[in-house]
């Protein structure tokens, strides 16, 4: 019990990291897209918990709301919209590229092993204080993020709103029923 209490942070991290990797493997191996989407949803939630552990509380909330609430609903909506008829499960994997993926996995493993063996574990624990301070007063992470976002990073913030606008227009254009396709129905696919 003492071991559990004194090593709580480590145990928590390793459990969450294992669940994250498990969810990621589920996303790329499950054949049914709905199952993969649910696996991705779980991964998003666990990553949000990891954000909280890093004292990024505001981003954890944004992660849950935007990813789990917005993007995943969009994914599931599209999966339902295109129907399972077109999702041929027997053609789930691109088999000629699996050796490439295996080689890549081995290289990544070598990278991790070198990090562990060479002992390059970066020391130093950050302070949560700096992430919660506004003008020398400790308020909270949300206040601090808002303060930095609307002063130092105001111009990038405005620019990124244009990115969202362009994406919105692009999605409307792609999703619109195209008159050209209607006129040439049957010619394109044959």
């Amino acid at each position: 019990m003492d071991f559990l209490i004194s090593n709580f942070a480590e145990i928590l991290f390793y459990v969450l990291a294992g669940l994250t990797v498990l969810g990621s493997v589920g996303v790329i191996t499950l054949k049914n897209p709905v199952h993969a989407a649910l696996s991705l949803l779980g991964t998003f939630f666990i990553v949000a918990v990891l954000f909280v552990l890093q004292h990024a509380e505001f981003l954890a909330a944004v992660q849950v709301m935007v990813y789990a609430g917005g993007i995943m609903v969009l994914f599931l909506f599209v999966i339902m919209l295109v129907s399972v008829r077109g999702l041929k499960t027997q053609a789930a994997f691109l088999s000629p590229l699996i050796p490439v993926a295996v080689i890549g996995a081995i290289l990544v493993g070598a990278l991790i092993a070198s990090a562990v063996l060479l002992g390059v574990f970066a020391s130093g624990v950050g302070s949560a204080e700096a992430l919660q301070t506004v003008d020398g007063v400790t308020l909270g992470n949300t206040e601090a993020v808002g303060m930095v976002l609307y002063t130092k990073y105001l111009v990038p913030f405005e620019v990124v709103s244009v990115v969202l606008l362009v994406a919105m227009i692009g999605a409307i254009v792609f999703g619109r029923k195209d008159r050209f396709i209607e006129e040439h129905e049957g010619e394109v696919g044959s």
Partner: protein
Amino acid sequence: MITATHYLVLSLVMFSLGLIGVMVRRNFITVLMSLELIFNAVNLNLIAFSFRLGDLSGQILAIFVITVAAAEAAIGLGLIIALTRLKDTVILDDASEMRS
């Protein structure tokens, strides 16, 4: 003690899994989900460094990454709808019109 390297290794594993998913899957929807995994790995990296350096810039950059990920998801899913309407498929190999 949990150091930044722990988070970087986790981020590396997640990024690689997403990359493998993008490479080997043939279903367009699953490829997009793997891309989301890659974005999340990047965010984890940024947050880890933000905490260690005591600098909020990493968290701000992560917000921008989330914004771009949302834009990418909207465009990508719009493309899926267009592809389904045109060819009634979401398998990437079937979309080979530009191959001569």
